[in-house]
């Protein structure tokens, strides 16, 4: 485990006991899995007291085989002064896709969350303008979920067996 991982984990354990479900290093990034209800408190704490002033990116992920951890949101923070980057993940089942919004902490989360809503259907509670952003408003599904195949479902000339897979 990296030094940065241990420092952040220690700070979070002291301040928010039980908020971190699991953690570890993924290549050069410390990754923390958080409780959804503690997300805002933890990120606010890191921004205000640990210098993680920059929300680099966030995105949704769909793991169709993970049961009650089917959907995940990934957040990446950057401490520009000390050049530290960390990643957070929040998992949730398909039935509870409501997540507190980050727009109160970083205005830049506005469009990032609209994108996650557009492609995965996360409901960001408290978001000022939760509309689709890249797809058209009339669309009635969330296209980056794994159940939507890219290919036309009626095509049978591209099945795996023809390629020896």
């Amino acid at each position: 485990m990296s030094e940065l991982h241990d420092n952040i984990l220690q700070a979070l354990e002291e301040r928010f006991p039980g908020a971190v479900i699991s953690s570890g290093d993924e290549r050069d990034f410390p990754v923390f899995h958080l409780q959804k209800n503690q997300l805002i408190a933890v990120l606010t704490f890191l921004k205000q007291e640990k210098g993680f002033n920059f929300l680099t990116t966030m995105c949704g992920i769909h793991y169709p085989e993970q049961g009650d951890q089917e959907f995940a949101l990934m957040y990446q923070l950057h401490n520009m002064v000390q050049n530290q980057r960390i990643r957070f993940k929040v998992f949730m089942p398909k039935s509870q896709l409501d997540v507190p919004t980050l727009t109160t902490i970083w205005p830049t989360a506005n469009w990032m969350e609209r994108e996650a809503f557009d492609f995965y259907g996360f409901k960001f509670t408290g978001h000022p303008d939760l509309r689709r952003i890249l797809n058209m408003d009339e669309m009635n599904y969330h296209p980056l979920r794994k159940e939507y195949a890219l290919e036309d479902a009626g095509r049978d000339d591209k099945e795996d067996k023809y390629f020896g897979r």
Partner: protein
Amino acid sequence: MQVEMTRKINILEDNMSTNVDLQNNIEKDYTTLNLGPTHPATHGIFQNILTMDGEIIVKAVPTIGYIHRAFEKLAEHRPYNQITPITDRLNYCSSPINNMGWHMTVEKLINCEVPKRAEYLRVIIMELARIADHIVCDTVIAVDTGAMTGFLYLFQAREKIYEIYEAICGARLTTNIGRIGGMERDFPEIAWKKIHAFIDEFPTMLAEFDKLVTRNRIFMDRTVNCGPISAERALEYGFTGPNLRAAGVDYDVRVMNPYSSYQDFDFKIPVGTQGDTFDRYMVRMQEMWESLSIIKQAVAKMPKGEFHADVPEFYLPEKQDVYSKMEALIYHFKIVMGETEVPKGEVYHAVEGGNGELGYYLISDGGRTPFRLHFRRPCYIYYQAYSEMIEGGMLSDAILTMSSMNVIAGELDA
């Protein structure tokens, strides 16, 4: 005009419907103006629905997604080497940087050590691409202020850069340059000739443009204090690249997290103070000089050796080997059919793109295609500040602000 420019009107939604200006207590008519989706002055497909008070913008509502091509979904169905052409079409003004960013992401995932020569070749390509990108942005700012001449002059330099791309990879705009593990081939003799010619000619051309435009009275009147943003606000809005540096924050991925041997080169990070259009223009001008200096250093220090790493499952073998060697035939087949296997894992790699931190977040489940690929597109993230930057200003300044932010439709909509 001077007085009008600094006027900032904050009108609540409910006041809008009654058309009453509370401060002056007189009835007002607001005009709704549809700027875009296709408008010659916006250089791309952007729509902004503007509420106008005369020539002042009261409110702007941007709509994006007109050229959305579902790259993140497409990438989940393509083998790794076939994703490179997708990245070309993100920021198409500097596609080589996007290509290299993607190669480096995969190299990080497969733990591939790239030889020094390949890294230096990549640096040359990336800095040429940065110059091409900044040429587009800076000349277009000049065009939007009415100065066509500078644009026509400096675009010749961009043409020279495209000729260099062409000599290296055969393509000009959507380059698909380099391969996972290095370059597809060493630079041919003709490419070196063109690079040396470019190093010789470009300073004159850039200095000429600089002389023509930068201190021009009309240009400065139009750009100084036009569409400013403070450093704090820029950071909160996730600005990166020249736009953030124009606001005064010296954040550059090339220095912060050096990749591809950028630590070997000596260059400065130009920063601005006001974060306005003029500063954004100046930061890009200075960066072109720095990029040129990096290219010179890379050419001078060019190490000898291999131009690609030893990763045969990502690098097409020589054609005569395919016909005569078993391994080469197998690898050829695997690459062409997209059957290359990669380890499981999760990586994020960022490069300093033409307009900011271009990040690739890749999750691999060990299959032939990525499980999830997310592009951190700098345009997409900072364009949301656009409405805040233009509200209270004039319509003509809004056009300038957009071109100075270097919003590229392909990257915005992915």
